[in-house]
């Protein structure tokens, strides 16, 4: 194993690099969707326990991210977007990242089990295993559908948040899981379309690299089309009121519209990939607002503002 700067490894890694290893940017969305799952769930939970559950979900995600970077240091090193991460950047050795990742994962699962419930802890443990092993080690280097599977990892937080409150698995948290699951491929492939050179260099079979742009654009469209009815299902089954239902219709409609623009066009060199970048930016906004509306809907129902 070679690193860019072996001399620097004499120094113990800076604590900021350990923090960076947990992918704080991704964690924002994880925390947000977990909080939304918690707030939208029927029932109540003591604020201290709610905080603990969110902390465990976030730390678990951080542990999985650290394990991911321990495993993928070689791949990260050849991609411009990831070459500056702590391990490929030569600021941390792989062993530290591995130990840090296992420590965070173990600590978060144990705390979740002791403070909340072993069902929530079990699902948290499975989500870490899913991301750090099933996705990172097994599927990502093998199939261009990798990101579809990877989306599952990001879909766990609201499910765990919900279960932390109710203590059991019902259709609603599973629907929240499925919404993020279906959202991830168009979200990520939009990004992959404008950074695809990086992935081909690293030998990761990203969809645009393997199946070509045409096919990727069609698949973005297909997932966005499936997302529209799926995102409205919580309303159809009576799990939410019309506030969420109408919001989901408008937000997913816009998502489909932007995906249409990406799906039906052919890029020419030097066109700046504007529609793809817009879809990527919108997809993040979409998930934030959709989950926020889920919470707004729940509180509107509690306070009698909707039938």
């Amino acid at each position: 194993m070679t690193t860019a700067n072996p001399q620097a490894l004499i120094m113990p890694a800076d604590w900021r690099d350990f923090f960076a290893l947990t992918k704080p940017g991704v964690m924002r969305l994880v925390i947000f969707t977990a909080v939304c799952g918690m707030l939208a769930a029927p029932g109540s939970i003591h604020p201290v326990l709610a905080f603990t559950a969110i902390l465990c979900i976030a730390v678990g995600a951080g542990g999985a991210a650290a394990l991911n970077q321990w495993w993928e240091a070689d791949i990260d090193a050849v991609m411009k977007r990831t070459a500056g991460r702590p391990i490929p950047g030569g600021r941390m050795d792989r062993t530290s990242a591995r130990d840090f990742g296992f420590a965070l994962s173990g600590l978060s699962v144990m705390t979740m089990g002791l403070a909340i419930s072993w069902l929530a802890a079990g699902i948290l443990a499975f989500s870490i295993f899913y991301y750090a092993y099933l996705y990172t080690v097994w599927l990502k280097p093998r199939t261009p559908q990798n990101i579809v599977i990877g989306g599952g990892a990001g879909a766990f937080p609201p499910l765990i948040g919900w279960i932390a409150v109710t203590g059991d698995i019902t259709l609603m948290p599973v629907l929240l899981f499925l919404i993020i699951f279906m959202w991830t491929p168009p979200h990520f492939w939009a990004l992959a379309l404008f950074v695809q050179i990086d992935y081909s260099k690293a030998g990761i079979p990203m969809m645009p690299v393997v199946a070509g742009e045409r096919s990727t654009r069609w698949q973005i469209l297909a997932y966005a089309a499936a997302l529209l009815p799926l995102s409205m299902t919580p309303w159809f089954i009576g799990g939410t009121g019309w506030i969420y239902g109408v919001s989901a219709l408008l937000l997913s409609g816009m998502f489909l519209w932007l995906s249409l623009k990406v799906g039906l066009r052919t890029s020419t060199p030097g066109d700046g990939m504007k529609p793809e970048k817009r879809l990527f930016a919108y997809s993040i906004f979409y998930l934030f607002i959709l989950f926020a509306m889920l919470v707004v809907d729940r509180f509107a129902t509690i306070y009698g503002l909707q039938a």
Partner: protein
Amino acid sequence: MTQLPDNHPLSATETDALRTRQRERNKVMALILGLLVILFFAISIVKIAAKPPHAAGEGAEQAEQS
């Protein structure tokens, strides 16, 4: 990787940089451990104070038996 190779004596500035970094790490570690102590204490208090959901039922059963 705090272990230094024997064949590499550190200069004064390198030693200073190493110590500074170790101190920073220790401070962050102390802060995290302190917060964990507070968190676990709070969890314990909440758990002790909360009545388990089956407690009422059990109490009634015992009352019937006696």
